[in-house]
């Protein structure tokens, strides 16, 4: 497997927002079927990296996806008003998937373990966790080979977050997805990621989490953020 062409090859990527360099000289290769976590402190350029990978913002350097690869994107959150007149069903229809049927809408909800009756609910009135799953279902409608998943943070409670990872992990197995996920939780990185990219504008480290997440690397990445050492030590003791 290691000899196959990577599904994503990034070389010498530089992204600036205004006068500020947000991503610098980044090289990265992602192999098919792998789960790669991107970690780093707030403002380290994680979401910006995603946006560059998706071609949403201008960048310098090379972002080379395997030709014709289908990419699904799950943004960190969706800023919508609670009373927006848009049902979940309509939101799925907005994707304009070819041959979209009621059956496909139901299947999409089932694949993210939501009840069918949610189709008639307003997109703004369901919980943040449910909406996150709808975003995943939405991405899955495009039958993606790669899923870019920007982790929801503060607004989902721990148990909700945990189950979203289990779900994503399950989907990875079921659909043979390559997953690139932005994570703020080292527990998640240890449990679900095969490789981790530590990003603080530049690449600080890259490799399997057990190998590259040393306390020294963490200090370099987060600048002596003690909570992460705790995390780390408890993992290394296991």
């Amino acid at each position: 497997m290691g000899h196959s062409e990577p599904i994503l090859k990034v070389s010498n990527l530089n992204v600036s927002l205004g006068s500020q360099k947000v991503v610098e000289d980044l090289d990265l290769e992602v192999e098919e079927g792998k789960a790669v976590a991107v970690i780093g402190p707030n403002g380290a350029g994680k979401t910006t990296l995603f946006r560059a990978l998706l071609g949403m913002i201008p960048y310098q350097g090379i972002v080379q996806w395997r030709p014709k690869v289908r990419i699904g994107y799950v943004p960190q959150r969706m800023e919508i008003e609670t009373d927006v007149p848009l049902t979940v069903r309509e939101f799925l229809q907005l994707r304009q998937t070819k041959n979209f049927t009621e059956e496909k809408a139901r299947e999409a909800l089932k694949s993210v373990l939501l009840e069918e009756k949610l189709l008639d609910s307003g997109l703004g009135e369901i919980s943040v966790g449910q909406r996150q799953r709808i975003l995943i279902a939405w991405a899955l409608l495009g039958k993606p080979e790669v899923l870019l998943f920007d982790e929801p943070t503060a607004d989902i409670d721990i148990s909700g977050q945990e189950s979203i990872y289990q779900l994503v992990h399950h989907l990875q197995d079921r659909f043979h997805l390559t997953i690139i996920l932005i994570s703020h939780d080292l527990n998640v990185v240890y449990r679900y990621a095969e490789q981790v990219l530590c990003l603080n504008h530049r690449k600080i480290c890259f490799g399997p989490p057990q190998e590259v997440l040393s306390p020294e690397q963490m200090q370099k990445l987060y600048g002596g953020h003690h909570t992460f050492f705790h995390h780390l030590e408890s993992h290394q003791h296991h």
Partner: protein
Amino acid sequence: MLSIYMQLLTAIFVSAAASLLGVFAILKRMSLVGDALSHVALPGIALALVFHANPTLGALLFLFAAVIGIWLLEFKSALSVDTIVGIFFTASLALGSLLISDLELLEALLGDINSLTEADVWLSVILSSAIIAALWIIHKKLALHMVSPEMAHSIGIQSKKIELAYLFLFALGVALGIKFVGALLMGALIIIPAAAAKNIARSLTGFMALSIVAGIFSSVLGVYFSNLYQLSPGPIFILSGTAIFVLSLFWRSLFKSY
């Protein structure tokens, strides 16, 4: 003078197009921008009058220029679009008022459906239908772009193009409505029906349908009462629309539990 039936025909088509435009203005949360944008028509009308050209054409040219300005600002500037639009578009209202004679100013500000010719009526009907048709064709992309630009982008929707298309339709709608309700109240013709519909609707389809119904209903009332009491239809339209909005607020507090 235009017969009441011709007035109604104009009012119904123009307000249907305007209230459908309003749905997306509200989804995009640009009610204020939309309102201020309608003021830009005024200096256009003024200059057209000075040069003896068609006022609607003058309004349209200025609106298109303003729309391109907004569009560029949205993608280029770090300044808030609201602030810039609020200042410059209100300034253009002031400029327009200085350039126009008092009588014409009143008509440009408040509209006069009676001053329409029969040709104007048919042009309004055709262009309003074109706006409605165009909005219907792009409504899914438009709604997605307005609800989540990121998701729209991820499936290859060209946000800039769809946004520009919408803004042009918006400008066209404003130009059409100015004869009816005037530059001062045109923003309200677009926003009020949609704002009322949003209080009641749960789905996008319902939102669009209710907005059109509220718009048409208000405009019919506007024309009817203006003929009955020899008043200007614009303000009556806005007042009936506002009454519907207040009713929709009651509905919302009773039936929308969030």
